[in-house]
C-alpha cells in the first residue's frame, strides 16, 4: 500500500459495512436493502442508522416480520433486474429462509441451464457471548457453505468487511454474508477513503510466521492474532491466515502456508462437529500431508446449544488461551 499523506482513517466493523452499502447504493440505483427495522431504526444492531435519510424508505425498506417472505421476494426481484440486499437480522433465522436460499436462490441458475441469474445479497449475523441464548447466538455459516450455487462471506476486519461486501453486491450470484455481531463496535481498523473491492475467494495472511499456521475465520481471527502474540513471547512464530470466504475457497493460500509451517490449527466459531473446521482440516491433510509434522487440529464452538448464563456461554467459544495451549503443545515448546 502506498504511503498515506493523510492520517489513517479508522472505522468500526459496523461503520465499514454501512459505508459499503451506502457506496454501492449510490453507485447503482438497482440496489435496495430490505429487512425488519432497517430504516429509521437502522437495524436492531443500529449498524445502518442514517442510511434511510440519504436513500429514503423506497430503498431502505422496512418489511413485515416475514424472513422467508422477503427473502423469496428478493430472489424474484434479483431475477427481474434488481440487486437487492435482504437483512435477516440474526443468522439463527437462516433456518426460516432456508428453502428460499438453498432450494430457490442457489439452484435457479443451474436449473435454468444458466439462463436466470440471482444477484442477491443476504445479510446475516453470527457470534456468541452476547448472552442471547441458544436461538440468537449461533454461527451457521457452514450451512450455506454446504450448498452449491451460494457464495459465503465471513469477514473479520473493517477493511475486509467493506471490500467483500461491495464485491458481494456486484456479484451475479446469491451471496450470504455473515457479520460478526460483537465485531460491529469492538473491532476497529483502517479503511481507506477510495473505492476498493476485495474479490471473493482470496484468503489473507493476517500475520506472517514460520512455526505454525492458525487458519481462522471471522471473530476467530482476532482470537488467533491474540494467541499469536502470546506464542511469540514463548518463541513460537505463528502465521494467521483468514480465508475470508468459505466459498469460493482460496485453497492454495491455506495449503501453502501449512506447507511452510508444517503445523496447523483451524479455528472457527461455528459448531465443531460436521462444520467448517472439519472441512478445512481435511483439505490440509489431503494437500499438505507430507509436509505436516502431526495431525491438523481444530477448535470450534462446543457441540451444545449455546447457553444463556455467562459462565456457561463463555466456555463454548474457542479462546486465545486454548489456541495458545494447543499450539504450544503441537510445537513442543
Amino acid at each position: 500500500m502506498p504511503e498515506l499523506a493523510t492520517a489513517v482513517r479508522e472505522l468500526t466493523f459496523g461503520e465499514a459495512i454501512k459505508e459499503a452499502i451506502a457506496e454501492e447504493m449510490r453507485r447503482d440505483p438497482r440496489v435496495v436493502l430490505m429487512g425488519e427495522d432497517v430504516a429509521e431504526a437502522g437495524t436492531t444492531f443500529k449498524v445502518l442508522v442514517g442510511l434511510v435519510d440519504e436513500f429514503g424508505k423506497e430503498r431502505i425498506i422496512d418489511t413485515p416480520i416475514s424472513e422467508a417472505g422477503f427473502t423469496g421476494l428478493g430472489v424474484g426481484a434479483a431475477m427481474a433486474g434488481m440487486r437487492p440486499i435482504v437483512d435477516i437480522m440474526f443468522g439463527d433465522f437462516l433456518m426460516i429462509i432456508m428453502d428460499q436460499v438453498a432450494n430457490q436462490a442457489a439452484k435457479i441458475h443451474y436449473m435454468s441451464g444458466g439462463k436466470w441469474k440471482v444477484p442477491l445479497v443476504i445479510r446475516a449475523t453470527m457470534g456468541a457471548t452476547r448472552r442471547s441464548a441458544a436461538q440468537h447466538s449461533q454461527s451457521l455459516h457452514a450451512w450455506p457453505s454446504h450448498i452449491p450455487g451460494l457464495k459465503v462471506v465471513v469477514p473479520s476486519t473493517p477493511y475486509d468487511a467493506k471490500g467483500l461486501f461491495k464485491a458481494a453486491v456486484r456479484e451475479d450470484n446469491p451471496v450470504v454474508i455473515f457479520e460478526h455481531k460483537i465485531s460491529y463496535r469492538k473491532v476497529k481498523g483502517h479503511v481507506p477513503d477510495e473505492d476498493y473491492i476485495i474479490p471473493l475467494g482470496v484468503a489473507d495472511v493476517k500475520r506472517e510466521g514460520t512455526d505454525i499456521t492458525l487458519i481462522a475465520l471471522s471473530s476467530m481471527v482476532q482470537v488467533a492474532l491474540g494467541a499469536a502474540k502470546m506464542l511469540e513471547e514463548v518463541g513460537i512464530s505463528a502465521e494467521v491466515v483468514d480465508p475470508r470466504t468459505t466459498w469460493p475457497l482460496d485453497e492454495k493460500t491455506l495449503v501453502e502456508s501449512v506447507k511452510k509451517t508444517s503445523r496447523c490449527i483451524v479455528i472457527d466459531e461455528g459448531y465443531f462437529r460436521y462444520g467448517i473446521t472439519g472441512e478445512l482440516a481435511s483439505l490440509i491433510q489431503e494437500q499438505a500431508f507430507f509436509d505436516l509434522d502431526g495431525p491438523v487440529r481444530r477448535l470450534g464452538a462446543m457441540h451444545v446449544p449455546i447457553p444463556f448464563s455467562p459462565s456457561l456461554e463463555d466456555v463454548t467459544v474457542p479462546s486465545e488461551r486454548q489456541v495458545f495451549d494447543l499450539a504450544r503443545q503441537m510445537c513442543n515448546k
Partner: protein
Amino acid sequence: MSTAATKSPSKIPTDKLLRLYKQMVAIRLFEERVNDLYTRALMPGLAHLYIGEEAIAVGVCEALRTDDYITSTHRGHGHCLAKGASPDLMFAELLGKEAGYCKGKGGSMHIADPATGNLGANAIVGGSAGIATGAAYASKYLKQDRVAVCFFGEGALGQGLLYEELNLAQLWKLPVIFVCENNGYNEYTHFSESTAGDVSARADAFGMANETADGQNVREVFAVASKYIERARKGEGPAFLQFKTYRYHGHHVGDIARAYYRPKAEEQEWVTQRDPITLHGQWLMDNGVADRAVLDKVQADLIAEMDAAVEFAVNSPYPDPSKVDQDIYA
C-alpha cells in the same frame, strides 16, 4: 376489422377466441405425448400432467404480455406452453437433452425461459410465491408495467410462505396475481381434508381483491384474468384468483389405481361434462365462430407440430457429462 362477418359473439375478439382453443389443444396434445414418452420409459423422473386444467393456463397467459412474468409448479407444462415456450425445446428438456430449455439440468419440473418471462417452474409446493412477488416488486420499482402471475395448486394453501407473500403484495400494492388452480386434490388427498375454512376468505383477510371462477370455461378465465391483470398493470394492486378445475390423470403418470382417493364416477363426470376443450369447441361452433372443419384443422396442424417436436427431442443428444459442473455460478 369490425365487419359483420367477423364480429365476435362475445367481448373477446374472434381471433382470440380461436387462439384460446388452439392453445388448449396444444397443451392437451403435448401432455398426451408426455404420457406416451413416459410410459415408453423415454422420460426420466416424474410427469405431472396438466390434462383437464388447460383453460386456466391458457385463459390467464393469453391475458398477459410476453414480457410479463409467470412462475409455475410441478404441474407446469401447460403454463410454460401457454406463456409461449416451444414444444420442441420443452420435450428436449423433459427428456434430459442438451437442446432443452435448461440444457437438461432442470427437467419437467423446472422449465424456465427468460424470453417468455417464465421465471421457472418450481418443485417446492408454494415455493415460487416469493419469486413472483419479487418480480412484481422489481417491475414496480423499475417503473415497468409488467405483471407477474404466480400459479399454484390448492395444496400450496398449506404453506406459510404464501401468506407472507399475500401480505407483502397487498401491503406494497405489487402487480402480482396469485392464481390458485383448485383441482380438488393435494396428491392423493381431497383438499377438504387438508384445508380449513374458505379459500377466498384467505385473500379477504389481507384485503386483497379476489374472485373465484370456473376453471373449465376458458372465456371466463380469460375475462377474469384480464380484468385483474389490467388492474394490477395500472398500479391498483394484486389479486387472488381461484379457478375450480380437475386433473383427469393421476397425480403423476404412475398414479393409476386412484379409486381409494377419488371415485371413478367423479372423474367421468368432469371428463365427459366439463372438458374445457370440448366445451369451448362447442361454443365456437354454436356461435358461428368456427365450424368442425376449422377446429379439426387446428388439431391436425398441432399434431404435426407436436410429433415433429417429439421427434426432435428423441433424436437430440444428451448433454456431455463434462457439462455437469457448468452453470453453477453466473
